[in-house]
């Protein structure tokens, strides 16, 4: 339907379209096999465009990742497809600065679009939602359908705009539909599709004014982008508004503040940053921007006029992820006595319990009964716990179930393997019901957050901005170890891959330190898991304090930690490991009645050309930990590379 209307617009030959270099980029991306070198040769023909792309790639980077210096760099960091999309949209700006529609304010249109782009890039960066570069591109073009209608139906659209200006209560989208049988949002989406932008760009544009619930198949990427677009639209409108309008808009800004999870000073700093970046980009692209009013003044004026409504907004949207409720839990064990005891413990805590006696049965039941949590034994005939977990993670329906693995004492060493298979947490047997239920509570937290997201999608209309906070909490929970609060294995592996990519490109030294607490099993065995947990938490704290700002500490297994040290050579990393080791050794742990100190063994490795990937770097650090253990523990070691040339016996 809409496609037909759009094709009519297109046939007019007056829709905004890339020209010059933009057209070349479009043609390039339409050929089946293009790569970074094609992109570089096409775009670098335009030095101004090149420098804009580099500037943008730098501004969307996370801090401390290093500077992008060339188009090639930019394409490697943010992806060639992202660069080509962005290059295309920059080229659109220069080709459509004016037009035939007299009522259409072309300058304001691009200034507002630019503000949307800048705001979206920053919001995505702060919340860690999707790619900031993509958010920038999508938001920059998010209103381009208006330009489209103004270009094709310049007179009719002009009349429409004039009518809206006179009567503020008119809804422009319904007027567009009435007049052209298509609205500007739909035109935007269709144009993006035409230009080969990702599908979720157009999806997000269409969803922006709808409830996210209307379609269950909406992808996470789309939802994230919708949230970013909504927040950035508010921020952008605010940038361009007159002071009086800004006061009126203040409650909407407070909602954005909440979604960003910021306090007032942080939010003021953030908005000012967005404002000044917008002005800077305005100069670069030769677009007119306005001065940005100090947020503090607007806040003060707004508080005087609407103190109550502002307050009530803050209370709205409170979420309590720790609230207890009965969960549907699937217990899996081939051994009936353990299964019965496990089920008994869970039932008494108030949960609904399903039982399966092996992995295959559990797989079928998970897909059929959709439990919140699966608690499974490891060793089972037919399909064991890890195979079950892997199978679930491959299935659409099993991907989000919380998976808790029961391990035997002698399996604890292999727990890293289990995390790699996709488990969320594990409990060592034999356990008492207190420990078990504490772990279930940690799972409950994630289950609650996840379901709240679903619920919001089903019931809320037009209030879905709150999802931003939820999505972020969910994301944080997914990347955080619940016990120590440190980043977890999943996070550190992603981060390590990113650092590895940087290393491949820049060859700036990259080291990692693998750390294992010595004799930790004895702590658990002699003092119980509660004390063991306290020891882990305190040791994590001590290590964190002993590290430098740029180092990233994560808990990647039971008593295993990883430190990623960007821009650090072997000597530096060894020094760092030694500092951590001494700090741990010197720290007396009192909580939990442990009253003593633990020691660590640390293994250092540094990226070099003999390694094929980040995994090889990790493996080298792992070997170094073994060397440290073999040398009597409580020491730091490294293994010189390549290992093949290392004399085995002297």
């Amino acid at each position: 339907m809409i496609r037909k209307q759009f094709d009519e617009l297109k046939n007019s030959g007056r829709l905004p379209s890339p020209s010059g270099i933009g057209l070349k980029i479009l043609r390039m991306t339409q050929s089946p096999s293009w790569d970074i070198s094609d992109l570089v040769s096409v775009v670098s023909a335009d030095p101004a465009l090149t420098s804009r792309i580099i500037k943008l790639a730098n501004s969307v980077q996370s801090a401390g990742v290093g500077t992008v210096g060339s188009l090639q760099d930019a394409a490697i960091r943010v992806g060639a497809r992202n660069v080509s999309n962005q290059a295309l949209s920059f080229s659109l700006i220069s080709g459509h600065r004016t037009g035939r529609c007299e009522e259409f304010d072309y300058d304001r249109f691009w200034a507002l679009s630019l503000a949307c782009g800048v705001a979206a890039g920053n919001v995505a960066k702060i919340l860690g939602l999707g790619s900031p570069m993509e958010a920038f591109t999508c938001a920059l073009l998010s209103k381009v359908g208006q330009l489209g209608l103004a270009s094709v139906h310049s007179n009719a659209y002009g009349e429409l705009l004039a009518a809206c200006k006179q009567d503020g209560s008119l809804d422009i989208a319904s007027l567009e539909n009435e007049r052209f049988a298509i609205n500007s949002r739909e035109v935007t989406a269709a144009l993006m599709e035409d230009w080969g932008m990702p599908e979720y760009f157009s999806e997000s544009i269409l969803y922006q004014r709808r409830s996210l619930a209307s379609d269950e198949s909406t992808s996470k990427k789309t939802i994230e982008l919708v949230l970013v677009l909504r927040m950035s639209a508010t921020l952008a409108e605010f940038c361009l508004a007159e002071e009086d309008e800004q006061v009126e808009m203040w409650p909407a800004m407070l909602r954005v503040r909440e979604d960003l999870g910021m306090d007032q000073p942080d939010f003021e700093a953030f908005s000012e940053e967005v404002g000044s970046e917008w002005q800077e980009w305005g100069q670069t692209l030769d677009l007119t921007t306005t001065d940005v009013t100090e947020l503090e003044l607007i806040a003060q004026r707004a508080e005087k006029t609407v103190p109550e409504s502002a307050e009530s907004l803050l209370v709205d949207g409170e979420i309590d992820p720790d609230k207890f409720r009965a969960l549907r839990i699937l217990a899996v064990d081939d051994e009936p006595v353990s299964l019965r005891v496990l089920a008994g413990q869970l039932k008494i805590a108030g949960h609904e319990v399903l039982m399966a006696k092996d992995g295959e049965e559990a797989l079928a039941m998970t897909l059929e009964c959709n439990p919140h949590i699966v608690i499974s034994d490891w060793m089972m005939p037919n399909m064991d716990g890890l195979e079950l977990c892997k199978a679930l993670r491959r299935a659409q329906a099993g991907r989000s179930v919380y998976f808790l693995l029961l391990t035997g004492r002698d399996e604890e060493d292999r727990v890293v393997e289990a995390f790699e298979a996709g488990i969320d947490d594990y409990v060592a047997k034999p356990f008492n019901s207190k420990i078990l239920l504490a772990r279930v509570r940690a799972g409950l937290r994630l289950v609650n957050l996840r379901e709240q997201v679903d619920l919001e999608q089903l019931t809320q209309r037009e209030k879905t901005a709150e999802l931003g906070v939820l999505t972020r909490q969910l994301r944080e929970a997914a990347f955080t170890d619940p016990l120590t609060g440190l980043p977890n294995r999943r996070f550190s592996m992603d981060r390590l891959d990113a650092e590895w990519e940087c290393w491949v490109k820049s060859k700036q030294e990259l080291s990692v330190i693998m750390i294992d607490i010595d004799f930790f099993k004895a702590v658990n065995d002699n003092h119980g898991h509660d004390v063991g947990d306290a020891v882990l938490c305190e040791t994590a704290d001590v290590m964190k304090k002993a590290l430098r700002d740029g180092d990233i500490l994560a808990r990647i297994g039971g008593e295993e930690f990883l430190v990623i040290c960007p821009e650090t050579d072997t000597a530096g990393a060894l020094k760092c490991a030694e500092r951590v080791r001494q700090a741990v050794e010197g720290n007396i742990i009192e909580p939990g009645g442990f009253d003593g100190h633990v020691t660590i063994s640390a293994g250092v490795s540094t990226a070099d050309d003999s390694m094929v990937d980040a995994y090889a770097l990790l493996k080298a650090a792992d070997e170094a930990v073994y060397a440290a253990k073999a040398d009597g523990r409580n020491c730091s070691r490294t293994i010189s590379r390549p290992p093949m040339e290392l004399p085995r016996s002297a």
Partner: protein
Amino acid sequence: MADTNETVLDMEVIGALRALEADGAPGLFAEIVELFLTDTPPRMKGLEAASDAGDMPGVEAAAHSLKSSCGNLGATVLVDLFKQIEMLGREHAPEEIPSLVSKSNEEFVRVQSALLNTK
């Protein structure tokens, strides 16, 4: 009588199970004991058969499962015996397994009567 019970069964574990019952699962303890008493003998037969056949992976798996089953009821001596058998199975060292298996049979009789006493 009470003395033997203590060495055969870890009363703390039994106490925890009874506490579960008190927390709102009437009959749970008796149910678990009965399950254990009917489920364990055939499993032990299976272990013995695997040992006789020299099937070491079979020995390891059977002992592993018996170990965790006995752990639930605090049958510490049995847990230890099965742990040793599991290790021997893993290391493919069949020599000592038959004597440990017969020890576990004797111990099971003791556990059985101790459990019936606690009922």
